[in-house]
Protein backbone atom coordinates (compact mmCIF):
# COMPACT_ATOMS: atom_id res chain seq x y z
CA UNK A 1 0.00 0.00 0.00
CA UNK A 2 1.31 3.48 -0.88
CA UNK A 3 2.20 5.85 1.96
CA UNK A 4 -0.42 8.29 0.81
CA UNK A 5 -3.09 5.56 0.80
CA UNK A 6 -2.49 4.37 4.33
CA UNK A 7 -2.41 7.92 5.71
CA UNK A 8 -5.63 8.73 3.85
CA UNK A 9 -7.19 5.59 5.31
CA UNK A 10 -6.09 6.63 8.80
CA UNK A 11 -7.73 10.00 8.28
CA UNK A 12 -10.91 8.28 7.16
CA UNK A 13 -11.15 5.80 10.05
CA UNK A 14 -10.46 8.49 12.65
CA UNK A 15 -13.16 10.71 11.16
CA UNK A 16 -15.57 7.77 11.10
CA UNK A 17 -14.63 6.54 14.56
CA UNK A 18 -13.46 3.08 13.56
CA UNK A 19 -11.22 2.21 16.48
CA UNK A 20 -10.10 -1.23 15.35
CA UNK A 21 -11.18 -4.21 13.31
CA UNK A 22 -13.86 -5.17 15.86
CA UNK A 23 -15.57 -1.78 15.95
CA UNK A 24 -19.11 -2.41 14.66
CA UNK A 25 -19.34 0.86 12.75
CA UNK A 26 -19.60 2.02 10.12
CA UNK A 27 -21.64 -0.96 8.98
CA UNK A 28 -20.04 -1.07 5.54
CA UNK A 29 -16.55 -1.39 7.07
CA UNK A 30 -17.27 -4.39 9.30
CA UNK A 31 -14.15 -6.51 9.74
CA UNK A 32 -11.89 -3.97 8.07
CA UNK A 33 -8.85 -2.43 9.73
CA UNK A 34 -9.40 0.45 12.13
CA UNK A 35 -7.09 3.17 13.41
CA UNK A 36 -5.12 0.82 15.63
CA UNK A 37 -4.22 -1.67 12.89
CA UNK A 38 -3.52 1.02 10.30
CA UNK A 39 -1.21 3.00 12.60
CA UNK A 40 0.70 -0.18 13.42
CA UNK A 41 0.99 -1.00 9.73
CA UNK A 42 2.09 2.53 8.85
CA UNK A 43 4.96 2.30 11.33
CA UNK A 44 5.91 -1.10 9.92
CA UNK A 45 6.08 0.44 6.47
CA UNK A 46 8.54 3.01 7.74
CA UNK A 47 6.28 6.03 7.71
CA UNK A 48 7.57 8.51 10.30
CA UNK A 49 5.51 8.90 13.49
CA UNK A 50 5.28 12.64 12.83
CA UNK A 51 3.78 11.98 9.40
CA UNK A 52 1.31 9.48 10.85
CA UNK A 53 0.23 12.10 13.36
CA UNK A 54 0.24 15.15 11.09
CA UNK A 55 -0.95 13.64 7.82
CA UNK A 56 -3.07 10.72 9.06
CA UNK A 57 -4.60 11.27 12.48
CA UNK A 58 -4.91 15.04 12.88
CA UNK A 59 -6.76 15.59 9.59
CA UNK A 60 -9.26 12.92 10.74
CA UNK A 61 -9.95 14.79 13.95
CA UNK A 62 -10.13 18.01 11.97
CA UNK A 63 -12.84 16.56 9.72
CA UNK A 64 -15.00 15.48 12.64
CA UNK A 65 -14.30 18.76 14.50
CA UNK A 66 -15.44 20.80 11.50
CA UNK A 67 -18.56 18.67 11.16
CA UNK A 68 -19.27 19.22 14.86
CA UNK A 69 -18.73 22.92 14.41
CA UNK A 70 -21.28 22.96 11.57
CA UNK A 71 -23.77 20.94 13.64
CA UNK A 72 -23.42 17.91 11.36
CA UNK A 73 -21.75 15.69 13.99
CA UNK A 74 -22.50 15.19 17.66
CA UNK A 75 -20.56 14.55 20.83
CA UNK A 76 -20.93 10.79 20.39
CA UNK A 77 -19.16 11.09 17.01
CA UNK A 78 -16.42 13.21 18.54
CA UNK A 79 -15.93 10.70 21.36
CA UNK A 80 -15.67 7.72 19.07
CA UNK A 81 -13.26 9.57 16.77
CA UNK A 82 -11.15 10.50 19.80
CA UNK A 83 -11.12 6.82 20.79
CA UNK A 84 -9.95 5.88 17.32
CA UNK A 85 -7.21 8.50 17.50
CA UNK A 86 -6.18 7.29 20.97
CA UNK A 87 -5.99 3.70 19.72
CA UNK A 88 -3.57 4.83 17.00
CA UNK A 89 -1.65 7.04 19.42
CA UNK A 90 -0.90 4.02 21.60
CA UNK A 91 1.51 2.92 18.87
CA UNK A 92 3.07 6.40 18.71
CA UNK A 93 3.55 6.86 22.45
CA UNK A 94 7.22 5.80 22.51
CA UNK A 95 8.02 8.46 19.89
CA UNK A 96 6.48 11.21 22.02
CA UNK A 97 8.57 10.04 24.97
CA UNK A 98 11.76 10.11 22.89
CA UNK A 99 10.98 13.61 21.59
CA UNK A 100 10.69 12.42 17.99
CA UNK A 101 7.18 13.90 17.81
CA UNK A 102 6.73 17.52 18.85
CA UNK A 103 3.46 18.93 20.17
CA UNK A 104 1.91 22.15 18.85
CA UNK A 105 1.88 23.76 22.30
CA UNK A 106 0.56 23.31 25.81
CA UNK A 107 -2.95 24.07 27.02
CA UNK A 108 -3.80 24.15 30.71
CA UNK A 109 -7.49 23.38 30.90
CA UNK A 110 -10.08 23.24 33.64
CA UNK A 111 -13.63 23.96 34.75
CA UNK A 112 -13.59 26.84 37.22
CA UNK A 113 -14.25 26.57 40.94
CA UNK A 114 -17.78 25.67 42.03
CA UNK A 115 -18.59 23.98 38.74
CA UNK A 116 -18.42 20.23 38.20
CA UNK A 117 -19.47 20.17 34.56
CA UNK A 118 -16.94 18.49 32.34
CA UNK A 119 -18.48 17.66 28.97
CA UNK A 120 -17.51 20.96 27.32
CA UNK A 121 -14.06 20.85 28.84
CA UNK A 122 -13.54 17.28 27.67
CA UNK A 123 -14.57 18.22 24.14
CA UNK A 124 -11.99 21.01 24.08
CA UNK A 125 -9.41 18.52 25.34
CA UNK A 126 -10.27 16.03 22.59
CA UNK A 127 -10.17 18.58 19.80
CA UNK A 128 -6.99 20.29 20.96
CA UNK A 129 -5.23 16.97 21.47
CA UNK A 130 -6.45 16.08 18.02
CA UNK A 131 -4.76 19.23 16.80
CA UNK A 132 -1.42 18.23 18.28
CA UNK A 133 -1.60 20.10 21.58
CA UNK A 134 -0.39 18.76 24.87
CA UNK A 135 -3.34 19.24 27.22
CA UNK A 136 -2.90 19.47 30.97
CA UNK A 137 -6.38 18.75 32.25
CA UNK A 138 -6.84 20.07 35.78
CA UNK A 139 -10.35 18.63 35.94
CA UNK A 140 -13.40 20.36 37.38
CA UNK A 141 -13.92 22.72 40.33
CA UNK A 142 -10.43 24.17 39.81
CA UNK A 143 -9.26 27.07 41.97
CA UNK A 144 -7.26 30.11 40.77
CA UNK A 145 -4.30 28.77 42.74
CA UNK A 146 -4.37 25.47 40.90
CA UNK A 147 -4.37 27.26 37.52
CA UNK A 148 -1.52 29.46 38.74
CA UNK A 149 0.50 26.44 39.89
CA UNK A 150 0.05 24.76 36.53
CA UNK A 151 1.12 27.89 34.67
CA UNK A 152 4.14 28.30 36.93
CA UNK A 153 5.51 24.98 35.77
CA UNK A 154 4.46 25.51 32.11
CA UNK A 155 5.29 29.13 31.51
CA UNK A 156 4.58 29.02 27.76
CA UNK A 157 1.17 27.38 28.14
CA UNK A 158 -2.11 28.96 27.24
CA UNK A 159 -5.13 28.55 29.55
CA UNK A 160 -8.68 27.39 28.81
CA UNK A 161 -11.46 28.04 31.32
CA UNK A 162 -14.85 26.33 31.20
CA UNK A 163 -18.09 26.99 33.09
CA UNK A 164 -21.72 26.04 32.59
CA UNK A 165 -23.45 28.24 35.12
CA UNK A 166 -24.21 31.94 35.36
CA UNK A 167 -22.94 31.82 38.92
CA UNK A 168 -19.71 29.95 38.31
CA UNK A 169 -18.74 31.83 35.15
CA UNK A 170 -18.08 34.81 37.42
CA UNK A 171 -15.11 32.86 38.83
CA UNK A 172 -13.50 33.08 35.37
CA UNK A 173 -12.87 36.77 36.11
CA UNK A 174 -10.96 35.95 39.26
CA UNK A 175 -8.84 33.28 37.56
CA UNK A 176 -8.06 35.60 34.65
CA UNK A 177 -7.06 38.40 36.99
CA UNK A 178 -4.84 36.09 39.06
CA UNK A 179 -3.08 34.69 36.00
CA UNK A 180 -2.61 38.06 34.32
CA UNK A 181 -1.24 39.54 37.54
CA UNK A 182 1.33 36.75 37.65
CA UNK A 183 2.19 37.09 33.96
CA UNK A 184 0.32 39.57 31.74
CA UNK A 185 1.49 37.57 28.69
CA UNK A 186 -0.45 34.44 29.69
CA UNK A 187 -3.27 33.99 27.21
CA UNK A 188 -6.61 33.01 28.76
CA UNK A 189 -9.52 31.67 26.70
CA UNK A 190 -13.04 31.01 27.92
CA UNK A 191 -16.01 28.93 26.84
CA UNK A 192 -19.28 27.50 28.13
CA UNK A 193 -23.02 27.88 27.84
CA UNK A 194 -23.55 31.20 29.67
CA UNK A 195 -20.36 32.87 28.39
CA UNK A 196 -20.33 35.50 25.66
CA UNK A 197 -17.88 37.77 23.83
CA UNK A 198 -18.98 40.73 25.93
CA UNK A 199 -18.33 38.77 29.13
CA UNK A 200 -14.91 37.86 27.77
CA UNK A 201 -14.09 41.54 27.27
CA UNK A 202 -15.56 42.40 30.67
CA UNK A 203 -13.14 40.08 32.51
CA UNK A 204 -10.11 40.81 30.32
CA UNK A 205 -9.77 37.32 28.82
CA UNK A 206 -8.09 36.91 25.44
CA UNK A 207 -10.83 35.09 23.61
CA UNK A 208 -14.22 33.41 23.71
CA UNK A 209 -15.24 30.55 21.44
CA UNK A 210 -18.65 28.99 20.93
CA UNK A 211 -17.23 25.57 20.13
CA UNK A 212 -13.91 23.75 20.48
CA UNK A 213 -13.19 23.53 16.80
CA UNK A 214 -13.30 27.28 16.24
CA UNK A 215 -10.98 27.59 19.24
CA UNK A 216 -8.50 25.16 17.67
CA UNK A 217 -8.82 26.88 14.30
CA UNK A 218 -8.08 30.28 15.80
CA UNK A 219 -5.02 28.92 17.61
CA UNK A 220 -3.72 27.54 14.31
CA UNK A 221 -3.79 31.06 12.87
CA UNK A 222 -1.78 32.56 15.77
Amino acid sequence: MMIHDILAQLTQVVALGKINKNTPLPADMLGQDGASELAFRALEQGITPQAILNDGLLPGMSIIGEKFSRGEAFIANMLISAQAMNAAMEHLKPYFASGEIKSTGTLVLGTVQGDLHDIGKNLVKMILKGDGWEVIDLGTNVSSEAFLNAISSHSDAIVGLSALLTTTMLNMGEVTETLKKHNPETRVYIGGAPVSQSFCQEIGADGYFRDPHSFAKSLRLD
Partner: protein
Amino acid sequence: MPTKHEPDFANMIQVLSRQIPSRPTLFEFGLNDRLLGVLSGEASEDPSSRLGPLRRILKAFHAAGYDYATVSGFRTNTLSFPKGVIEEQKSKSLNAGSMITDRLGFEKYAWPDPNIGDYDLYYDLKDELPAGMKLIASGNGGLLENAIDLVGFETLSLMTLLDEGLTTDIFDAIGSRLLRFYEIVAAIDTVGACIINDDWGFKNQTMFSPEMLRRWIFPWHKKMVATIHNSGKFAILHSCGQLRDVMDDVIHDMNFDAKHSFEDQITPVETAYSLWGDKIAILGGIDMDFLARKPLDLIQARSLQILEKGMVKGGYALGSGNSIPDYIPDENYFAMISARDKYLNNP
Protein backbone atom coordinates in the same frame (compact mmCIF):
# COMPACT_ATOMS: atom_id res chain seq x y z
CA MET B 1 -44.32 41.16 47.84
CA PRO B 2 -46.67 40.68 44.90
CA THR B 3 -50.27 41.82 44.78
CA LYS B 4 -52.63 38.99 45.70
CA HIS B 5 -54.52 37.42 42.79
CA GLU B 6 -57.12 34.73 43.26
CA PRO B 7 -56.11 31.57 41.42
CA ASP B 8 -58.07 30.22 38.50
CA PHE B 9 -56.56 27.27 36.65
CA ALA B 10 -58.82 28.10 33.71
CA ASN B 11 -56.26 30.79 32.85
CA MET B 12 -53.50 28.22 32.68
CA ILE B 13 -55.72 26.01 30.51
CA GLN B 14 -56.27 28.93 28.14
CA VAL B 15 -52.52 29.48 27.91
CA LEU B 16 -51.85 25.78 27.34
CA SER B 17 -54.57 25.79 24.65
CA ARG B 18 -52.80 28.77 23.01
CA GLN B 19 -55.70 31.06 23.84
CA ILE B 20 -55.58 34.47 25.49
CA PRO B 21 -56.14 34.06 29.23
CA SER B 22 -58.64 36.31 31.00
CA ARG B 23 -55.72 37.97 32.79
CA PRO B 24 -51.93 37.78 32.57
CA THR B 25 -50.79 34.37 33.77
CA LEU B 26 -47.58 33.33 35.48
CA PHE B 27 -45.56 30.18 35.01
CA GLU B 28 -42.66 28.93 37.09
CA PHE B 29 -41.22 25.42 37.39
CA GLY B 30 -39.61 25.90 40.78
CA LEU B 31 -38.90 28.52 43.43
CA ASN B 32 -35.89 28.39 45.73
CA ASP B 33 -36.30 27.62 49.41
CA ARG B 34 -35.64 31.19 50.57
CA LEU B 35 -38.32 32.53 48.24
CA LEU B 36 -40.73 29.78 49.29
CA GLY B 37 -40.16 30.96 52.86
CA VAL B 38 -40.71 34.62 52.02
CA LEU B 39 -43.87 33.93 50.04
CA SER B 40 -45.41 31.32 52.32
CA GLY B 41 -44.50 32.99 55.58
CA GLU B 42 -42.95 29.70 56.73
CA ALA B 43 -39.21 30.13 57.00
CA SER B 44 -38.53 26.41 56.72
CA GLU B 45 -40.24 23.14 55.95
CA ASP B 46 -41.96 21.22 58.70
CA PRO B 47 -40.12 17.92 58.44
CA SER B 48 -42.45 16.17 60.89
CA SER B 49 -45.49 16.53 58.65
CA ARG B 50 -46.08 14.47 55.52
CA LEU B 51 -48.02 17.24 53.81
CA GLY B 52 -46.15 20.12 55.43
CA PRO B 53 -43.46 20.73 52.78
CA LEU B 54 -46.01 20.63 49.95
CA ARG B 55 -48.47 22.81 51.87
CA ARG B 56 -45.69 25.39 52.10
CA ILE B 57 -45.19 25.23 48.31
CA LEU B 58 -48.93 25.64 47.72
CA LYS B 59 -48.98 28.67 50.01
CA ALA B 60 -46.01 30.23 48.25
CA PHE B 61 -47.37 29.72 44.71
CA HIS B 62 -50.74 31.00 45.89
CA ALA B 63 -49.22 34.10 47.47
CA ALA B 64 -47.23 34.89 44.32
CA GLY B 65 -50.36 34.65 42.19
CA TYR B 66 -49.94 31.39 40.30
CA ASP B 67 -52.98 29.34 39.29
CA TYR B 68 -51.26 26.13 40.28
CA ALA B 69 -48.35 24.78 42.29
CA THR B 70 -45.70 22.46 40.90
CA VAL B 71 -45.15 19.16 42.64
CA SER B 72 -41.94 17.47 41.62
CA GLY B 73 -41.62 13.70 41.75
CA PHE B 74 -38.73 13.92 44.16
CA ARG B 75 -41.01 15.54 46.76
CA THR B 76 -43.59 12.78 46.67
CA ASN B 77 -41.47 9.69 47.21
CA THR B 78 -42.73 8.20 43.96
CA LEU B 79 -40.72 6.88 41.04
CA SER B 80 -37.00 7.53 41.23
CA PHE B 81 -34.01 5.71 39.81
CA PRO B 82 -31.35 5.10 42.47
CA LYS B 83 -28.06 6.65 41.39
CA GLY B 84 -24.44 6.10 42.28
CA VAL B 85 -22.55 8.61 44.36
CA ILE B 86 -22.56 11.93 42.52
CA GLU B 87 -20.42 14.74 43.88
CA GLU B 88 -22.66 17.77 43.69
CA GLN B 89 -21.89 21.35 44.62
CA LYS B 90 -23.42 24.12 42.57
CA SER B 91 -23.35 21.67 39.70
CA LYS B 92 -22.65 18.08 38.84
CA SER B 93 -20.81 16.28 36.12
CA LEU B 94 -22.86 14.49 33.48
CA ASN B 95 -20.29 11.71 33.70
CA ALA B 96 -20.64 11.18 37.44
CA GLY B 97 -22.19 8.30 39.32
CA SER B 98 -22.58 5.83 36.48
CA MET B 99 -23.97 2.46 37.59
CA ILE B 100 -24.69 0.75 34.29
CA THR B 101 -21.81 0.49 31.89
CA ASP B 102 -22.44 -2.97 30.49
CA ARG B 103 -25.03 -5.75 30.21
CA LEU B 104 -24.18 -7.13 33.65
CA GLY B 105 -24.71 -3.71 35.24
CA PHE B 106 -28.08 -3.48 33.49
CA GLU B 107 -29.13 -6.91 34.76
CA LYS B 108 -27.96 -6.25 38.32
CA TYR B 109 -29.50 -2.79 38.63
CA ALA B 110 -32.44 -2.65 41.06
CA TRP B 111 -35.04 -1.24 38.66
CA PRO B 112 -37.75 0.53 40.69
CA ASP B 113 -41.43 -0.39 40.56
CA PRO B 114 -43.29 2.71 39.33
CA ASN B 115 -46.50 1.56 41.03
CA ILE B 116 -44.95 1.89 44.45
CA GLY B 117 -44.90 5.36 45.98
CA ASP B 118 -46.91 7.87 47.92
CA TYR B 119 -49.33 8.75 45.12
CA ASP B 120 -51.99 9.30 47.81
CA LEU B 121 -50.22 12.52 48.56
CA TYR B 122 -51.55 14.07 45.36
CA TYR B 123 -55.07 13.14 46.48
CA ASP B 124 -54.51 14.27 50.04
CA LEU B 125 -53.54 17.75 48.86
CA LYS B 126 -57.09 18.24 47.62
CA ASP B 127 -58.21 19.83 50.89
CA GLU B 128 -55.11 21.99 50.98
CA LEU B 129 -55.50 23.45 47.50
CA PRO B 130 -56.93 26.97 47.47
CA ALA B 131 -60.10 27.21 45.39
CA GLY B 132 -59.29 27.49 41.69
CA MET B 133 -55.81 26.04 42.04
CA LYS B 134 -54.48 22.78 40.61
CA LEU B 135 -51.25 20.87 40.85
CA ILE B 136 -48.78 20.55 37.98
CA ALA B 137 -46.90 17.31 38.45
CA SER B 138 -43.41 16.61 37.18
CA GLY B 139 -41.26 13.51 37.26
CA ASN B 140 -38.05 12.84 39.07
CA GLY B 141 -35.93 13.55 36.01
CA GLY B 142 -36.66 12.56 32.45
CA LEU B 143 -35.81 9.67 30.18
CA LEU B 144 -32.53 10.98 28.82
CA GLU B 145 -31.59 12.63 32.12
CA ASN B 146 -32.03 9.40 34.06
CA ALA B 147 -30.16 7.41 31.42
CA ILE B 148 -27.26 9.88 31.61
CA ASP B 149 -27.28 9.65 35.42
CA LEU B 150 -27.26 5.85 35.36
CA VAL B 151 -24.78 5.32 32.55
CA GLY B 152 -22.70 8.53 32.42
CA PHE B 153 -22.82 10.88 29.45
CA GLU B 154 -19.69 9.79 27.65
CA THR B 155 -20.32 6.08 28.22
CA LEU B 156 -23.89 6.48 27.00
CA SER B 157 -22.69 8.38 23.93
CA LEU B 158 -20.36 5.55 22.97
CA MET B 159 -22.97 2.93 23.86
CA THR B 160 -25.43 4.42 21.37
CA LEU B 161 -22.86 3.72 18.65
CA LEU B 162 -21.29 0.49 19.85
CA ASP B 163 -24.07 -1.44 21.62
CA GLU B 164 -27.49 -0.61 20.23
CA GLY B 165 -29.17 -3.56 21.97
CA LEU B 166 -28.13 -2.48 25.45
CA THR B 167 -28.97 1.14 24.62
CA THR B 168 -32.48 0.08 23.62
CA ASP B 169 -32.94 -1.98 26.78
CA ILE B 170 -31.82 0.88 29.04
CA PHE B 171 -34.11 3.45 27.42
CA ASP B 172 -37.02 0.99 27.43
CA ALA B 173 -36.48 0.18 31.11
CA ILE B 174 -36.55 3.87 32.08
CA GLY B 175 -39.17 4.97 29.55
CA SER B 176 -41.72 2.31 30.46
CA ARG B 177 -41.49 3.27 34.14
CA LEU B 178 -41.82 6.98 33.47
CA LEU B 179 -44.80 6.25 31.27
CA ARG B 180 -46.48 4.42 34.15
CA PHE B 181 -45.65 7.31 36.51
CA TYR B 182 -47.38 9.81 34.21
CA GLU B 183 -50.28 7.45 33.66
CA ILE B 184 -50.88 7.37 37.42
CA VAL B 185 -50.42 11.06 38.22
CA ALA B 186 -52.28 12.42 35.19
CA ALA B 187 -55.37 10.49 36.25
CA ILE B 188 -55.49 12.21 39.67
CA ASP B 189 -58.09 14.97 39.77
CA THR B 190 -55.94 17.45 41.71
CA VAL B 191 -53.45 17.38 38.86
CA GLY B 192 -54.28 19.82 36.07
CA ALA B 193 -51.21 19.32 33.90
CA CYS B 194 -47.90 17.48 33.84
CA ILE B 195 -44.39 18.66 33.14
CA ILE B 196 -42.18 16.15 31.40
CA ASN B 197 -38.76 17.36 32.35
CA ASP B 198 -35.89 16.07 30.24
CA ASP B 199 -32.93 18.17 29.10
CA TRP B 200 -31.93 17.40 25.51
CA GLY B 201 -29.64 20.20 24.40
CA PHE B 202 -26.35 21.95 24.85
CA LYS B 203 -25.72 25.53 23.84
CA ASN B 204 -25.09 24.84 20.16
CA GLN B 205 -27.02 21.67 19.42
CA THR B 206 -28.85 18.71 20.89
CA MET B 207 -26.76 16.47 23.18
CA PHE B 208 -27.32 13.55 20.82
CA SER B 209 -28.15 13.53 17.14
CA PRO B 210 -31.80 14.07 16.21
CA GLU B 211 -31.72 10.55 14.69
CA MET B 212 -30.69 9.05 18.04
CA LEU B 213 -33.34 11.07 19.88
CA ARG B 214 -35.99 9.99 17.35
CA ARG B 215 -35.01 6.36 17.72
CA TRP B 216 -34.74 6.05 21.51
CA ILE B 217 -36.12 9.11 23.29
CA PHE B 218 -39.00 10.64 21.38
CA PRO B 219 -41.17 7.52 21.02
CA TRP B 220 -41.41 7.26 24.81
CA HIS B 221 -42.19 10.96 25.10
CA LYS B 222 -44.91 10.56 22.51
CA LYS B 223 -46.43 7.81 24.65
CA MET B 224 -46.15 9.89 27.82
CA VAL B 225 -47.86 12.88 26.18
CA ALA B 226 -50.60 10.58 24.84
CA THR B 227 -51.24 9.08 28.26
CA ILE B 228 -51.46 12.56 29.81
CA HIS B 229 -53.85 13.66 27.06
CA ASN B 230 -55.92 10.51 27.59
CA SER B 231 -56.60 11.73 31.11
CA GLY B 232 -57.74 15.07 29.72
CA LYS B 233 -54.66 16.86 31.04
CA PHE B 234 -52.01 19.02 29.38
CA ALA B 235 -48.40 18.06 28.73
CA ILE B 236 -45.62 20.62 29.15
CA LEU B 237 -42.08 19.94 27.96
CA HIS B 238 -39.33 21.36 30.12
CA SER B 239 -36.14 20.83 28.17
CA CYS B 240 -33.03 22.98 28.22
CA GLY B 241 -30.56 23.67 25.45
CA GLN B 242 -30.63 24.15 21.69
CA LEU B 243 -33.65 22.21 20.38
CA ARG B 244 -34.09 24.05 17.07
CA ASP B 245 -33.54 20.89 15.02
CA VAL B 246 -36.18 18.88 16.88
CA MET B 247 -38.89 21.45 17.56
CA ASP B 248 -41.00 20.04 14.74
CA ASP B 249 -40.85 16.68 16.52
CA VAL B 250 -41.85 18.31 19.81
CA ILE B 251 -44.84 19.99 18.22
CA HIS B 252 -46.05 17.64 15.51
CA ASP B 253 -44.82 14.19 16.52
CA MET B 254 -44.84 14.20 20.33
CA ASN B 255 -47.74 16.67 20.48
CA PHE B 256 -46.63 18.64 23.51
CA ASP B 257 -48.98 21.47 24.47
CA ALA B 258 -46.29 23.79 25.78
CA LYS B 259 -42.54 24.30 25.82
CA HIS B 260 -40.61 25.64 28.80
CA SER B 261 -36.95 26.60 29.26
CA PHE B 262 -35.34 29.25 27.11
CA GLU B 263 -31.94 30.94 27.18
CA ASP B 264 -30.90 34.22 25.54
CA GLN B 265 -27.61 32.67 24.41
CA ILE B 266 -29.57 29.98 22.55
CA THR B 267 -33.02 31.15 21.49
CA PRO B 268 -34.40 34.19 23.32
CA VAL B 269 -37.99 33.66 24.37
CA GLU B 270 -39.16 36.51 22.14
CA THR B 271 -37.68 34.69 19.13
CA ALA B 272 -39.12 31.36 20.27
CA TYR B 273 -42.55 32.92 20.66
CA SER B 274 -42.52 34.34 17.15
CA LEU B 275 -41.08 31.11 15.65
CA TRP B 276 -43.29 28.55 17.39
CA GLY B 277 -45.93 30.46 19.40
CA ASP B 278 -48.71 29.73 16.92
CA LYS B 279 -48.10 25.97 17.23
CA ILE B 280 -47.21 25.43 20.90
CA ALA B 281 -47.68 27.48 24.08
CA ILE B 282 -44.51 29.22 25.24
CA LEU B 283 -43.92 29.41 28.98
CA GLY B 284 -41.56 31.67 30.93
CA GLY B 285 -38.35 32.51 29.15
CA ILE B 286 -36.96 35.55 30.95
CA ASP B 287 -33.30 34.57 30.77
CA MET B 288 -31.67 33.47 34.01
CA ASP B 289 -28.55 35.58 33.57
CA PHE B 290 -30.69 38.58 32.62
CA LEU B 291 -32.85 37.97 35.67
CA ALA B 292 -29.87 37.58 37.98
CA ARG B 293 -27.84 40.57 36.87
CA LYS B 294 -29.94 43.26 35.19
CA PRO B 295 -31.45 46.32 36.92
CA LEU B 296 -35.02 45.99 38.20
CA ASP B 297 -36.48 48.46 35.70
CA LEU B 298 -35.03 46.53 32.76
CA ILE B 299 -36.34 43.24 34.15
CA GLN B 300 -39.81 44.66 34.54
CA ALA B 301 -39.75 46.34 31.12
CA ARG B 302 -38.72 43.16 29.28
CA SER B 303 -41.24 41.09 31.24
CA LEU B 304 -43.99 43.57 30.42
CA GLN B 305 -43.08 43.62 26.76
CA ILE B 306 -43.35 39.84 26.28
CA LEU B 307 -46.44 39.70 28.47
CA GLU B 308 -48.15 42.34 26.32
CA LYS B 309 -47.39 40.32 23.20
CA GLY B 310 -48.78 37.24 24.92
CA MET B 311 -52.00 39.02 25.83
CA VAL B 312 -52.53 39.84 22.16
CA LYS B 313 -51.54 36.56 20.56
CA GLY B 314 -52.26 34.11 23.39
CA GLY B 315 -50.42 30.98 24.46
CA TYR B 316 -47.96 32.68 26.75
CA ALA B 317 -47.37 32.75 30.52
CA LEU B 318 -44.74 34.95 32.15
CA GLY B 319 -41.84 33.47 34.07
CA SER B 320 -38.15 32.76 34.16
CA GLY B 321 -36.19 30.84 31.57
CA ASN B 322 -35.82 27.89 33.90
CA SER B 323 -36.63 28.33 37.61
CA ILE B 324 -35.78 30.68 40.44
CA PRO B 325 -32.60 29.42 42.11
CA ASP B 326 -31.24 31.13 45.20
CA TYR B 327 -28.71 33.25 43.29
CA ILE B 328 -31.52 35.29 41.76
CA PRO B 329 -32.24 38.15 44.19
CA ASP B 330 -35.84 38.10 45.44
CA GLU B 331 -36.37 41.69 44.28
CA ASN B 332 -35.39 40.71 40.72
CA TYR B 333 -37.97 37.91 40.75
CA PHE B 334 -40.60 40.30 42.11
CA ALA B 335 -39.68 42.85 39.42
CA MET B 336 -40.40 40.17 36.79
CA ILE B 337 -43.81 39.17 38.12
CA SER B 338 -44.73 42.80 38.88
CA ALA B 339 -45.10 43.21 35.11
CA ARG B 340 -48.45 41.48 35.53
CA ASP B 341 -49.72 44.25 37.89
CA LYS B 342 -48.28 46.90 35.63
CA TYR B 343 -50.19 45.35 32.72
CA LEU B 344 -53.40 45.08 34.73
CA ASN B 345 -53.13 48.74 35.74
CA ASN B 346 -52.51 49.82 32.12
CA PRO B 347 -53.79 47.04 29.87
